[in-house]
């Protein structure tokens, strides 16, 4: 008797799960989202409390939200300078990447030439050898050439780091353009250069924007390269500034430190939210040919 009843109960639980499967999955996903957002939300809440409030058990100060940390940061010349440096390096690097990969991607997608496949593999292999193994020699080379602490070196290095990814994305984009367009241009007497400049580039704007935005965010978030190549206070980017800030403030004014990390997070986050579709697609194409 008891055995039979157990079997019935287990079946009905299984049934219940199967019937409400989607609800269960939605519930689990919401829980996961909460877990993923928790560090950010907690940091944000902390940034709205006055200094030293970390010890308190209450969520916020009785007087309400405290905006003093944000006011202080946004009126501090050094912090603003760091943000400006990040902006210049990120935009410059992303523009460089976009330009060179718009060209190279087309050659790899559509043109036949000797060495095409091996050059493509070479570039991919470079992507697989991440920055870190070349950073020490890069530091030495930049020191020897006396170009550390310049926008130039940051833009060139960022511009290069984005190349393998950019070529992959642009190549994928060009491959979706129907060949008839190029054939029609050729029939009209356009040479390959004209076809590329006047037919292909204008309709590739969405791909170019995707490459630019993705690389902008990568450059904005870069921490290690900037840490190694920049040492003067005037040239440091926001991420390196935050690293210095971390060692100075942690424990005694974590609230201010958290406000700084929230401000630095915002540009990348907004761009991602605005262009998430092309971000996600680009990342899949960049790693696994989709």
């Amino acid at each position: 008797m008891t055995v039979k009843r157990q079997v019935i109960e287990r079946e009905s639980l299984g049934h219940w799960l199967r019937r409400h499967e989607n609800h269960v999955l939605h519930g689990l996903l919401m829980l996961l989202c909460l877990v993923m957002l928790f560090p950010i939300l907690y940091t944000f809440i902390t940034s709205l409390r006055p200094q030293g409030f970390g010890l308190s058990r209450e969520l916020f100060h009785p007087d309400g939200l405290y905006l003093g940390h944000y006011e202080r940061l946004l009126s501090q010349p050094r912090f603003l300078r760091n943000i400006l440096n990040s902006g210049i390096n990120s935009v410059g690097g992303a523009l460089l990447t976009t330009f060179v990969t718009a060209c190279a991607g087309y050659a790899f997608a559509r043109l036949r030439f000797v060495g095409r496949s091996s050059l493509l593999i070479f570039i991919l292999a470079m992507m697989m050898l991440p920055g870190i193994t070349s950073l020490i020699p890069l530091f030495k080379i930049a020191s020897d050439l006396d170009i550390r602490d310049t926008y130039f070196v940051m833009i060139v290095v960022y511009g290069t780091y984005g190349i393998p990814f950019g070529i992959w994305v642009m190549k994928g984009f060009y491959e979706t353009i129907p060949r008839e367009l190029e054939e029609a241009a050729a029939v009209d007497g356009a040479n390959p250069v004209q076809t590329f400049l006047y037919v292909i580039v204008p309709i590739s704007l969405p791909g170019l924007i995707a490459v630019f935005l993705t690389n902008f965010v990568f450059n904005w978030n870069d921490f290690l390269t900037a840490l190694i190549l920049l040492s003067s206070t005037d040239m440091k980017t926001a991420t390196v500034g935050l690293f210095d800030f971390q060692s100075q403030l942690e424990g005694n004014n974590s609230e201010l430190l958290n406000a700084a990390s929230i401000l630095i997070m915002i540009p990348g986050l907004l761009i991602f939210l605005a262009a998430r579709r092309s971000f996600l697609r680009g990342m899949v194409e960049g790693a696994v040919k989709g």
Partner: protein
Amino acid sequence: MLSHRLYKIFPYVLIAPAMLLVLLVSLYPTLYSFYLAFHRNRRGVLEYVGTRNFEVIVNSDAFWNSLRLTAVFGIFFVGLVMLFGFLLALVFNRNLQGGGIYMTIIFIPWMLSEIVAGVMWRWMFLPQLGVLQNALSPLLGDITFLATGSGALGVVIGATLWRSLAFAMLLLLAGLQTVPKELSEAGMIDGANRWQVFWRITWPLMLPTTQITFVFLTIQAVNAVGMFLSITQGGPGTATDVLSLQMYREAIEFFNFGYGAALSVVMFVINAVLAFVYISTLRAQHAFD
């Protein structure tokens, strides 16, 4: 014939800027690190020392400690991120309503700088003040996470998992979506249950993507330095002093270019092996045609 010659040169003109940059900024420094690895820095002058840097590395306890830590970190990080990434990819593959919103939210940590993530995670685990330090410590026998070797490594693993989960999931999901729905439906009609359909049809078909994701994450794990720098800086003591961190410190902080470069050659070899696996996997899928 101008246009004929143009047609021949044009592809090379198009790839020249990209190639030049990759050669100068990626390839040349990598080769230069091999040169540096056989020299040492003496008051700013490079001095040839043969293989001595490598001998020092092989004989130093710090190196073996770092290698072991890198392996431990890699095994936990890759294992966990693959497991959770796979489960999540299976969920997203069902095309739930509102799936796009969940995916966007789960992706947000990947869009944060390592140092921003580091500030957040350190703050949650700061001794006495951290919210997770205070919440989790009683469950795990009153440990102070950042002051304990395994605790600090655990925090870095947690933070890296948090940052990379969505990315791994996305790659695996892309693999899952290459499996035609008709195949699994046909399997169901033939009387297979879901478990059988997964192991007999879905899993073998997406194995190549799984391999690529695995290699990709392993490379990420071997080279992870940003999260260690921003969370533990190798501490407490040398308990989280992974290979990449040791290399960074030797070269950049102590100007020990030769030793640092020798370490980066060792890492280069590890990476090259992984890259080789990655590229041959892609090649087997005709990604370069």
